[in-house]
């Protein structure tokens, strides 16, 4: 493999990991930490993307303003949903699932009514750079940087700030935290809002490279859940390592054909065989198979084995 191909390969792997991290980060808080199966997480992503669309196309704000607005709007929406619905359902996981599914359908409906069911695009201006024979878009590097920044901020927030300690205490043992004087309902609300805001940020960052359409969340929610579940109980580092493992597998299988299977009949056009690997389709399949295998071998998720045994 020549050097430029190797560099491009590394960039592709980084890109796959970036997308998984962006999708899963908000859910890592809401599902990983708070154990809320939030089926409306995909729509938080969608609302983030539509905030960018609305602020650039209709309010004529610069793209970056829309991208900064998106997490705030979605965090606000998340807090409103937590106060109105989820707060009443803590400890009732099945009811939460049903309720958030309803919220998901409602949001898709509202967005469709407001913006129409059409696919819309957000053009962006960044250029590209050359790697040997290849050209690569700069925006992908921006995405990776932002994803790393978000991951690091969330880690620092929960590890080193007073808010983070209270939030972790609240989730670990709500009664004890409450007895120690922490306003636990407020902590739940803020953590949920933060998780929603991170999904909104992901939607905003990905909006320019994917088409913006009311049902776009559905395409991403499964991957977000898979990443968090495979990540296991140590939420942030687990999510990061599962995104890395899954992203690596996806990028490699998307890029390299593994082997070919000869097929009978219809052989006039050149490929008389099916090539396994080497396309986005097999990349996705490989990601799913790998996730299943991992969960079979490590039922607790990747980080399930890091915890010191009690």
């Amino acid at each position, binding site marked *: 493999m020549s050097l430029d*191909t190797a560099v*491009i390969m590394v960039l*592709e792997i980084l*890109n796959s990991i970036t*997308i998984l991290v962006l999708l899963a980060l908000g859910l890592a808080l809401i599902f990983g930490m708070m154990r809320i199966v939030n089926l409306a997480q995909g729509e938080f992503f969608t609302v983030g993307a539509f905030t960018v669309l609305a602020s650039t196309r209709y309010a004529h704000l610069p793209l970056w303003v829309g991208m900064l607005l998106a997490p705030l709007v979605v965090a606000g929406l998340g807090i409103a949903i937590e106060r109105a619905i989820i707060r009443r359902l803590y400890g009732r996981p099945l009811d939460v699932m049903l309720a958030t599914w309803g919220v998901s359908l409602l949001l898709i409906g509202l967005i*469709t009514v407001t913006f129409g*069911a*059409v*696919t*819309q*695009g957000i*053009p*962006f201006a*960044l*250029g*590209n750079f050359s790697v040997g*024979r*290849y*050209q*690569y*878009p700069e*925006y*992908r590097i921006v995405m990776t940087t932002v994803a790393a920044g978000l991951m690091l901020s969330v880690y620092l927030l929960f590890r080193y700030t007073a808010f983070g300690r209270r939030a972790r205490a609240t989730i670990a043992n709500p009664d004890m935290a409450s007895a120690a004087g922490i306003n636990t309902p407020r902590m739940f609300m803020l953590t949920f809002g933060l998780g929603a805001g991170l999904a909104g940020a992901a939607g905003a960052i990905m909006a*320019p*490279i*994917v*088409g913006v*359409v009311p*049902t776009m969340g559905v*395409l991403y929610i499964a991957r977000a859940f898979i990443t968090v579940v495979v990540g296991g109980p140590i939420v942030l580092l687990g999510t990061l390592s599962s995104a890395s493992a899954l992203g690596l597998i996806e*990028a490699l299988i*998307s*890029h390299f054909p593994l082997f070919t299977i000869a097929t009978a009949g*219809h052989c*006039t*056009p*050149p*490929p008389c065989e099916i*090539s396994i690997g*080497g*396309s*986005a*389709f097999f*990349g*996705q399949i490989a990601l799913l198979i790998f996730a299943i295998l991992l969960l079979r071998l490590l039922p607790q998720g990747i980080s399930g084995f890091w915890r010191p045994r009690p």
Partner: protein
Amino acid sequence: MARQRPNRRDFLRTAAAAGGVSVFPAVLRHRPSWAAANTVPVGSLLDKTGGINIYGLPAIAGTEYAVAEINAKGGLLGKQLELIQYDTQSDIANFPKFAKKLILEDQVAVIHGGITSASRESFRPVIDEYKQLYFYNIIYEGGVCDKYVFVTGETPSQQMGPLAKYALKKYGTKAYTVAADYNFGHISWKWWDIFWRNGGGLEPVAGAKRGQHVGKVEFIPLDVTDFNATINRIQEAKPDVLMSFLVGGAHINFYRQFAAAGLKNKIPIISTTFGFGNEHIVLDAKEVEGLVACYPYFDELDNPQNRALKAGMKKKMGNPNYYIGDAGAESYNGWHFWAKGVQKAGSFEREPVTKALESGIEWDSPMGRVKMDPASHHTIFTMHLAAVNSKRGWNVLESFPNIPPTETMQLCDLIKNPNQHTQYQPK
């Protein structure tokens, strides 16, 4: 004494009664008598929502406009048309379901619609089972040969011939192909391979350059939105031209990501699908300017029928910049082809209408003169090769009058051999 439990005989009796009720409509179904009523129900199955609605919405606009226009002119045979539309939601399972509903419950005189070839093939068996007159009004991979089906969309010969000749002359001989991963993309690829390697014809074209393929054809599922790896493989293969059979809302991202990688001015794109869902409106002009496609209709065509259609559609949609596009115009044409068949036949019944359409109906549509080929039930058009311009529109480069759907016509003769309900494809 407690009530006796139902015995086997009771059970059988109840089951038989229930079964009888459920098959009742099918058993007792007779051709509805449209002659008696003041209105005639007609059906349309298009994707108003979901990933395929980039084609569905323009097709619905064309459908509604055509039916309203027919009704405004006094309807057909003195009756108003009652348009019954179901949103098939870009979900294949909805097509057979709603097709049955249109046939059995709504008792429509005709069904128009279906967008992806996967959706069409999912309910064509229903059409054949109930002998229902059906119009498929969209560009597709060719080869459908079915007595009950009329096609007003264009096929590979009509698009790929002109595209191959243009690309060979203008860009070079090395092509890379990306295609949507379902029957449309796979069959289109087989035809494209023939047209490209023959220099633009089904048989080798004398004196023409021959095309060749570089890299492997890539089939991409409809829900893929990230094309990073594909774009890098295209750069690796260094083609002179890229052929795109990409389909649907998610695949629009390909063109944006391709431009973002700085390839737009390096590798020219030709396509049989780009533009009929008005992708050039969704994308920014600088992302796709120069992309070349071949359709029988562009809004830019100048003729009295198209001027009237454009003015009327802009009013209907309340948008002075509304772009009708190929999908809208073909739906419009499909309904008018059917209406002309009904008028000529003096009946809404399938057999006389089919016979009338098989008499070779032609008329001046917004696309110019169009003709229904009697034997293949396909349409002969004037095709236009056009490039996306900097104003989110098209510049017509070259026009080719009376291009027949040769690949289907050479195999399909529904007059000589009417009992065909099949789709031909290259071996």
